[in-house]
């Protein structure tokens, strides 16, 4: 009992510490630095401690200090309670989704079965999308509570974009569910041990549509019509400053990690290495004893999983700094007229193929 509790607590601290403590602040730096390198610039490199800049990594700390010490401004006529509540609603679901995201398989360590997921829900995939769509309320309430026309317009755009792309997203994962026959994220991950059974080969169209829909869900360029600096000032968070603004910002970056993790689990073989099964690695590590080999295998799988997640974060950043923003009508057209019929056709074809194989 105590042992299980300890293991769960360690897992919780690991995943929360990694997302909130490492990914969220470092991704602000990565975003600036990667865009700079892409555009032949130098990028953030000014913040220093005793003349030591560490490639500008201290900008993350400097940003955090700035966010903490800035005035927390609430505009006149705004609903003070909802104005404070909405960033919390936006950021909590983004962190919460990691409760069901597995970052490794199951391992036998000293007689204990360690399952590298905080909560192995039977409806894990459904849970992720249910929780992630709650964040939309945060954005809509933010626009409403700000007493600002641009904010309200931004939040209305958020709501319509979410509704449009949630449909595609839901229909896309149905294809994945049909292939793997499970809603447990751990089982979907475990089913992809063979390289040719990765979701990438099973559902190529599904991968493309899921990526497009999830970037639209995260409201990043090219789907950033809700924020659209040149049209709506900054969209729903125009009237936010200080730590509240920082929470919206953090929610966006944590959602990026979430998208990376979900795409990795559903389509890119979760923690598995191509052409290298766990049994092969275990046979190589035979000299460490059963427990030691399992422990090293676990660490390797965690590293592989996060390497894949980091690759997808890089991919999203590259898209964000390559493509221009879609017009609002183009977003709606893409969502309803192209992605929705394609995802329905994807389900049909997947069903026919499964039927033919059986």
């Amino acid at each position, binding site marked *: 009992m105590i042992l299980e509790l300890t293991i769960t607590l360690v897992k919780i601290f690991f995943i929360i510490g990694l997302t909130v403590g490492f990914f969220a602040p470092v991704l602000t730096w990565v975003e600036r630095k990667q865009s700079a390198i*892409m555009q032949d610039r130098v990028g953030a490199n000014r913040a220093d401690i005793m003349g030591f800049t560490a490639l500008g990594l201290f900008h993350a700390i400097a940003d955090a200090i700035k966010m903490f010490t800035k005035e927390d401004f609430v505009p006149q006529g705004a609903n003070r309670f909802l104005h404070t509540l909405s960033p919390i609603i936006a950021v909590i679901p983004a962190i919460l989704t990691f409760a069901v995201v597995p970052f490794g398989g199951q391992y036998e360590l000293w007689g204990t079965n360690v399952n590298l997921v905080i909560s192995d829900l039977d409806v894990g995939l459904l849970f992720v999308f249910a929780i992630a769509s709650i964040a939309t309320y945060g954005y809509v309430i933010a626009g409403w509570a700000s007493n600002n026309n641009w904010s309200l317009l931004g939040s209305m755009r958020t709501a319509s974009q979410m509704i449009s792309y949630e449909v595609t997203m839901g229909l896309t994962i149905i294809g994945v569910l049909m292939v793997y026959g499970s809603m447990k994220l751990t089982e979907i991950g475990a089913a992809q041990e063979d390289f040719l059974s990765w979701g990438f080969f099973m559902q190529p169209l599904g991968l493309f549509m899921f990526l497009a829909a999830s970037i639209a869900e995260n409201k990043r360029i090219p789907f950033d019509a809700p924020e659209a600096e040149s049209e709506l000032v900054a969209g729903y968070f125009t009237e936010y400053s200080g730590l509240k603004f920082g929470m919206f910002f953090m929610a966006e970056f944590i959602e990026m990690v979430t998208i990376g993790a979900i795409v990795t689990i559903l389509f890119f073989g979760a923690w598995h290495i191509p052409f290298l099964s766990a049994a092969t690695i275990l046979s190589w590590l035979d000299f460490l004893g059963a427990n030691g080999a399992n422990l090293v295998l676990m660490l390797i799988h965690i590293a592989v999983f996060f390497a894949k997640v980091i690759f997808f974060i890089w991919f999203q950043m590259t898209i964000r700094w390559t493509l221009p923003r879609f017009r609002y009508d183009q977003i709606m057209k893409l969502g309803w007229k192209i992605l929705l019929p394609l995802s329905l056709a994807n389900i049909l074809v997947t069903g026919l193929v499964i039927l033919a194989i059986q």
Partner: protein
Amino acid sequence: MAYFVDRTVKMTWWERSYLPAIIKGMYITSRHFFINLFGFVPFFLGQKKEREIFTLYYPEEMAPIPVAYRGRPVLAINENNLPNCVACGLCEAACPAYCIDIIPGENSGKQNEVERWPKEFTIDYAVCIFCGNCEEACPEEAIFMSDDYEIPMLDRKEMKFNLEQLSVPIEKLKDRVEFTRKMYGKWNY
């Protein structure tokens, strides 16, 4: 470099799906990303760098400024440590922004070799438009546009520079003097 884009081109459905354009764009940006990220490796192996980053670290590094650049106007001090200016007022008249203010004084014999000298010479950089007309109007090679552009101040009153603040030894302005002689033909006056 003017070129025309043919907008009547017929696209295939594959091209209209935006995918090839997106892939091409992603290829270009990631090529720049990886060349810049690992561009220093061939440099260490003794080869030429693929691409240099043009960014200057501004307060520490300054871009070389061409001689034709018009920075803040300054007064030239000749070899005898006296201003070349004779307080004729031509620059004051030529100034379209009325930022130059001269109070001439009678020569008592030690200030200059000619009759008049500027008792006070004020340029208000908050008003100056850096047109260079004063330099062109000056018959005595006394006022020049320098290469100094760092004149932001916290107070507008401080932007009025007096004679001492404006003075710059003529050795520092040699290139500009040559340039103005060539440009404005002052040699023939």
